[in-house]
C-alpha cells in the first residue's frame, strides 16, 4: 500500500521566516537609502589633483632627514599609494611660555623636538565626505598614517589644496 504523505500546512515557522526575510529586505532598503551603501558615491564626486600636508609633531632629531621629495607615500592599512611626496619641511617644535618679568607669552622652540611637514601630491576623488586617495580619506584635522622609504608615522592633515 502506498504511503500517502499529508500535505504540510502553512504554520508559524513559515510565517516567522517570511517576517525575517521581509525585515532583511527592509534593512537593505534602509541602508541603501540612508547610508549611501550601494549608491554610486562617485556620482557626486569629481577627480582632482590635490596637494595635502601632513604634520608630524614633536619628533626626535634622529628621525629627521631620511624622507625626501620624490618618495612614494603609502597607507599602511591598505598598502595603497597615497601619493608622491613633493616637499619636506622641518620646523622647530614650539611651546608657549610665559615671561613673568614682562607679563607676555612667547612661542619658544624646543631644541630637541621637531615638526615634520610632508606635502604629498595625489589624484583624489572629492565627495561631500572628503578627499579619497585610493580608498584613504583625507580631511583637514584628520589623522593619517604614512609609510615611506625614509619615514613612518602618524600625522594630522593641516591643509588640502586642489591644484587641478
Amino acid at each position, binding site marked *: *500500500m*502506498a*504511503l*500517502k*504523505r*499529508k500535505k504540510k*500546512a502553512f*504554520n*508559524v*515557522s513559515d*510565517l*516567522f521566516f517570511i*517576517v525575517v526575510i521581509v525585515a532583511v529586505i527592509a534593512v537593505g532598503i534602509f541602508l541603501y537609502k540612508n*547610508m549611501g551603501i550601494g549608491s554610486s558615491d562617485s556620482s557626486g564626486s569629481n577627480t582632482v589633483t590635490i596637494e595635502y600636508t601632513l604634520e608630524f609633531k614633536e619628533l626626535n632629531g634622529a628621525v629627521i632627514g631620511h624622507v625626501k621629495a620624490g618618495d612614494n607615500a603609502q597607507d599602511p592599512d591598505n598598502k595603497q599609494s597615497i601619493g608622491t611626496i613633493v616637499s619636506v619641511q622641518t620646523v622647530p617644535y*614650539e611651546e*608657549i611660555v*610665559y615671561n*613673568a618679568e614682562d*607679563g*607676555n*607669552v*612667547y*612661542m619658544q622652540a624646543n631644541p630637541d623636538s621637531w615638526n615634520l611637514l610632508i606635502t604629498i601630491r595625489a589624484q583624489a576623488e*572629492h*565627495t*561631500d*565626505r*572628503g*578627499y579619497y586617495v585610493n580608498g584613504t580619506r583625507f*580631511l*583637514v*584635522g*584628520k589623522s593619517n598614517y604614512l609609510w615611506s622609504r625614509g619615514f613612518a608615522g602618524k600625522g594630522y592633515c*593641516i*591643509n*588640502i589644496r586642489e591644484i587641478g
Partner: protein
Amino acid sequence: MNNGTLKQKKFNVLDWMIIIVLILCVAVFVLRYTRKEDIKANSIAGTYAISFTVENVRYTTSDAFVKGDAVYVATDDTYIGIFDRIDSNNPSAYYAEDPSGGLVKKYYPEGTRVDLSGTIISEGVMNDDGYFAGGSYYLAPGKELTIYTGHIYIDIVLSGITEYTE
C-alpha cells in the same frame, strides 16, 4: 496497521517562542512609531541655526570650513545640516602661573592657536524634549561632537540652537 497518513505535528514550545518574539517585534514597532508621532504632534518643524565652538586649533583651520558643505556626525555618519559661517576667530586662551602661584590669563600669539565659533543650518524639529536634526537626531547645547564635511574633520561643542532667520 498503517493507515497511510503521517501524524500532524503538534504545536510545540518553539512555536510559542516564535509567537512571543513576533509579538515583541510588533510591540516595539508600535511603540517606536507612537513615540515618533508624539514627537511630531508636539513639535515645531523648521530650519534652525546650530552654533558651535572649537577650541585651541591651528590658526589655518578656519580655511577648511566651506560655506554650503554638508555636515555629518563622524561617529554614525548622520547628516545634520550644512555649514553656514565662521562667526568668530580669536587667539586661544593660555593660563600661565605667575610667581605668586596664581593664574594669569594670556592669549596665544597671532598665527598660532585659535578658538573658533560658527553656525550650521539644520532642518529638524524642536519640542519639549529638545531639538532633533532630521526629526530624530538629538542635539543640544553642551553636546560634544566630532563632525566632518567635504573639507574638514573636527571636534566641536554645541553652544546654541535657535530658529533660523536669514
